[in-house]
């Protein structure tokens, strides 16, 4: 069998037919049953292996031949991301499931406040960044066909007369047709493509076995690893990685790690097509293992090719040319199919992913802007438009790839082209990480950051790739634009020591991240951003759908029209019937609540992206959704403020109360202090009088030696009398102050108050006789049991009676004592027939040391403490002592005591 271009093209077409069949069967399989084998974690893992494109199949060998071990970084980066799947990929998958994310542009736009602008930006930039990558695949397929065609005399067959560009165009057109047939067959625009995934999984198996087959062949032909390496070393090749582990190593590993997250097709297979989160568990080790298997034979193939193939042959094609050179046509054909597999799977998925982004973020928003609300008549309209938009964008994507291929066809290596794309899509990484982990990242900052990163990328990575075809670019590369040296694309700001790749990666990602951080710190988030950010960050803590971005009410008819436009008649009917069943209302009277609107929005988002779904529903749902969200946010923030101010208020009220109490206490203290001073001065005054007398008489006794017996006796008796008075005064003072401080305790027990009164009368009998007063007994109570101390009660009675006797200046003094029981109280009245107490003295008679005018002149004046003490005692017995007589008649004091309760 001789391989010709015709044969390989025919084989390729047949292979495509096989893939198509697999996809068709896969779709039918998932539709009939519930996924089954096609939803196994291994099919999922194999579909992720779309990461290994013809860049791996052909380019890795070329890269290994040129730069040694460096090619493994492209696989080590993703390996590390999958090893750490728990921290980034798991969150991505979960958030995307909950939010019905359809693409990487949708993810960013959804997180950053459903911003349409960000969605458009990411879509456009992804289109530009992926163009070199598509070109790489076109170049690889073209080169592989050329390699086979050039291998024999009649190899070109019907390709005679086609040059490389023509062939590449043919390949691009074929791929476009193929992808359109593949990816946009479904009338249903839902974003999971089980059939395609099945085909991709098959291709993953084909490319791995093909590469391993070539690897085994090389080992066999080369005589084992040892022989291959030894021969390479002998041929003067540097088999050791002397210069490998430098800045390029680090930069490309970082890029590859970023690419496995940021590449649109990787996001599509890893996140969007994921049907079960637990599949990620298997993929976490199985995908690195797949890449390890792919990489295992790369170095031997490269070294064997370098030592055996003629000088100047393209190392990128060793996988194909080595079997060809050895006459292994069958193996060569298998290798070609392997390489073709890796290219087609990449192109299919990448263009599907990109076309979804284009239709959801560019076409639908434009359509929404230009279509009136009421034009929703035909149910299929939107979906047909979507599919057509996707078909057009697939053509556009392949055309861009072809254009890039055409402009850069002079450079021959595959891997550097891929790295340009990687650097481009890596510009999404800071925003994605911020979306997952940083609540305060703002939309404005994200847009600015991605733009800045992309401009730097365009300048320092994308543009330089045209240097071989454009003298202008070459001149800018050498001298800088307009001769500005510090703007040279590969030595920005004078940074010349870095490898061009590391240079571009460093500046683009550094400036990108810096703008994102500073921008987020300086700008503030809108209400919707705030809500979405919280949703993205709290997703693992609470279920989705806690917040309802769209609220308000809408007519069921309007909502149904929108749903039918996007989801198709059947699904719209299903959705609404289910809601009608749940709420138990008839179809016609259905009133969609916020929960239903929210669900509808998520369903729509699954087809046209979050931003477009939001815009579309906002048009129908009445009530200002955003103002409600603002209210929510404001409520969130003001709640805290209110709590703070309430706490403050409570604290200050407490302070005020305390201050008032303090003031009261202070006033009391001052009053008491004043009373104390007054009391002290009065006591001093009272004590002073007898002391003065005692001193005067004792001085006389001491100085007058010739005093007669009589006088000295009189003086001594005066001294004695005064000291007695002094003692009694001091006793009373002590007694009163003790009473006032509550220090005197006595036993209150039920006693007959009449007994105490009788005893007092007996005691005062002598005094009355001495003063010539008559004691009259008025009506008396028979018996009155009060709770009191008998001695103290007598003391009060004695005091009152003796006062009545002593201060009675009537010619025939009379004292009358009456007692009675009334209203549960026991009353004793002591009255005399004296002058009574004048009006002006009445308020003061209970003051301490107040004796009244009569008291001043009375011969046996007391300290003026009798009444205060008595009142104190009666008060402590819960009774009262008061002056009841009017002015102008004799004084009358009344003691009232509550009767003791008989228990």
């Amino acid at each position, binding site marked *: 069998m001789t391989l010709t271009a015709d044969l390989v093209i025919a084989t390729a077409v047949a292979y495509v037919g096989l893939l198509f069949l697999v996809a068709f069967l896969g779709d039918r399989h998932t539709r009939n049953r519930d996924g089954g084998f096609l939803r196994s974690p291994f099919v999922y893992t194999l579909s992720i292996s779309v990461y290994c494109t013809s860049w791996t199949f052909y380019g890795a060998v070329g890269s290994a031949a040129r730069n040694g071990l460096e090619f493994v970084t492209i696989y080590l980066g993703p*390996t590390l991301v999958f090893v750490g799947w728990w*921290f980034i990929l798991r969150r991505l998958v979960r958030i995307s499931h909950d939010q019905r994310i359809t693409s990487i542009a949708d993810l960013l736009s959804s997180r950053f406040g459903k911003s349409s602008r960000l969605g458009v930006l990411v879509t456009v930039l992804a289109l530009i960044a992926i163009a070199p990558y598509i070109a790489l695949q076109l170049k690889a397929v073209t080169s592989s066909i050329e390699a086979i065609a050039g291998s024999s005399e009649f190899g070109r067959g019907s390709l005679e007369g086609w040059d490389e560009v023509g062939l590449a165009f043919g390949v691009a057109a074929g791929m476009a047709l193929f992808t359109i047939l593949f990816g946009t067959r479904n009338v249903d625009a839902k974003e999971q493509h089980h059939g395609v995934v099945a085909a991709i999984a098959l291709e993953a198996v084909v490319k791995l076995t093909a590469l391993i087959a070539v690897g085994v062949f090389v080992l066999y032909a080369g005589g084992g690893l040892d022989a291959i*390496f030894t021969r390479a070393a002998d041929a003067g090749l540097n088999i050791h990685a002397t210069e490998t582990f430098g800045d390029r190593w680090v930069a490309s*590993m970082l890029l590859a790690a970023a690419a496995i997250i940021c590449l649109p097709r990787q996001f599509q297979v890893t996140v969007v097509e994921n049907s079960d989160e637990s599949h990620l568990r298997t993929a976490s080790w199985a995908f690195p293992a797949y890449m390890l298997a792919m990489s295992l034979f790369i170095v031997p193939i490269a070294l064997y090719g370098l030592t055996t193939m003629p000088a100047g042959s393209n190392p990128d094609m060793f996988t194909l040319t080595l079997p060809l050179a050895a006459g292994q046509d069958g193996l060569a054909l298998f290798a070609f199919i392997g390489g073709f597999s890796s290219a087609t799977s990449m192109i299919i998925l990448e263009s599907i992913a990109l076309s979804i982004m284009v239709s959801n973020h560019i076409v639908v928003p434009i359509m929404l802007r230009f279509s009136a609300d009421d034009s929703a008549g035909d149910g299929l309209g939107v979906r047909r438009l979507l599919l057509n938009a996707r078909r057009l964008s697939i053509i556009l994507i392949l055309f861009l790839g072809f254009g890039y291929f055409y402009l850069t066809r002079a450079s021959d290596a595959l891997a550097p082209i891929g790295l340009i794309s990687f650097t481009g899509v890596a510009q999404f990484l800071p925003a994605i990480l911020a979306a997952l982990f940083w609540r305060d990242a703002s939309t404005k900052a994200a847009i600015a950051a991605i733009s800045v990163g992309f401009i730097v990328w365009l300048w320092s990575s994308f543009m330089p790739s045209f240097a071989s075809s454009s003298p202008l670019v070459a001149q800018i590369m050498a001298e800088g634009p307009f001769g500005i040296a510090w703007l040279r694309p590969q030595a920005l700001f004078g940074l010349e020591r870095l490898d061009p790749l590391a240079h571009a990666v460093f500046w683009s990602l550094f400036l990108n991240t810096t703008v994102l951080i500073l921008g987020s710190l300086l700008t503030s988030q809108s209400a919707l951003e705030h809500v979405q950010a919280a949703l993205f960050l709290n997703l693992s803590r609470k279920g989705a759908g806690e917040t309802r971005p769209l609220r308000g009410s809408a007519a069921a008819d309007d909502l149904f029209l929108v749903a039918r436009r996007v989801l198709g008649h059947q699904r719209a009917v299903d959705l609404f019937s289910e809601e009608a069943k749940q709420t138990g209302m008839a179809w016609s009277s259905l009133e969609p609540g916020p929960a239903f609107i929210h669900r509808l929005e998520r369903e729509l988002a699954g087809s046209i992206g979050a931003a477009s779904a939001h815009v579309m529903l906002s048009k129908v749902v009445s009530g200002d959704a955003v103002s409600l969200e603002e209210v929510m946010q404001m409520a969130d923030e003001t709640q805290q403020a209110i709590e703070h101010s309430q706490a403050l208020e409570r604290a200050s009220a407490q302070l005020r109360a305390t201050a008032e109490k303090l003031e009261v206490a202070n006033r009391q203290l001052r009053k008491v202090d004043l009373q104390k001073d007054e009391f002290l001065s009065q006591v001093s005054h009272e004590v002073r009088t007898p002391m003065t007398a005692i001193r005067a008489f004792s001085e006389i006794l001491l100085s007058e030696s010739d005093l007669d017996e009589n006088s000295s006796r009189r003086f001594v008796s005066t001294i004695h009398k005064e000291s007695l008075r002094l003692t009694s005064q001091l006793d009373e003072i002590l007694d009163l102050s003790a009473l006032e401080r509550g220090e005197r305790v006595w036993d209150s027990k039920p006693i007959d108050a009449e007994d105490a009164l009788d005893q007092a009368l007996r005691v005062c009998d002598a005094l009355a006789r001495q003063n010539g007063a008559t004691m009259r007994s008025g009506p008396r109570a028979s018996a009155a049991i009060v709770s009191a101390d008998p001695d103290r009660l007598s003391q009060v009675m004695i005091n009152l009676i003796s006062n009545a006797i002593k201060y009675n200046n009537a010619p025939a003094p009379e004292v009358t004592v009456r007692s009675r029981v009334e209203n549960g109280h026991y009353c004793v009245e002591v009255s005399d027939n004296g002058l009574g107490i004048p009006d002006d003295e009445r308020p003061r008679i209970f003051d301490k040391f107040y004796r009244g005018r009569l008291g001043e002149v009375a011969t046996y004046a007391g300290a003026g403490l009798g009444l205060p003490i008595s009142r104190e005692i009666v008060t402590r017995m819960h009774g009262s002592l008061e002056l009841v007589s009017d002015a102008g008649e004799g004084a009358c004091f009344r003691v009232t005591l509550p009767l003791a309760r008989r228990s």
Partner: protein
Amino acid sequence: MTRRKLISAALFFTVFGALAFLPPLVLLFRFDARVAGVPIETVYIFVLWALLVVGTRWFSRVLPDDSPGDDKRPDAGP
């Protein structure tokens, strides 16, 4: 190991895996020696890679099941 420690272990496994592939650690293996004809640094990288696969397989089995339903996770990632 507790659930939190397992998650921390998975994080450090990833971080140290990354460090082992990067200079300066990887430079330790850049000397002229060959294992079965293969340069030592190549062997190192592939063996490390295989170990990472094995370790991740272990982690993928022991890391807690964390479906959205029963989620009370206080940790959110690195």
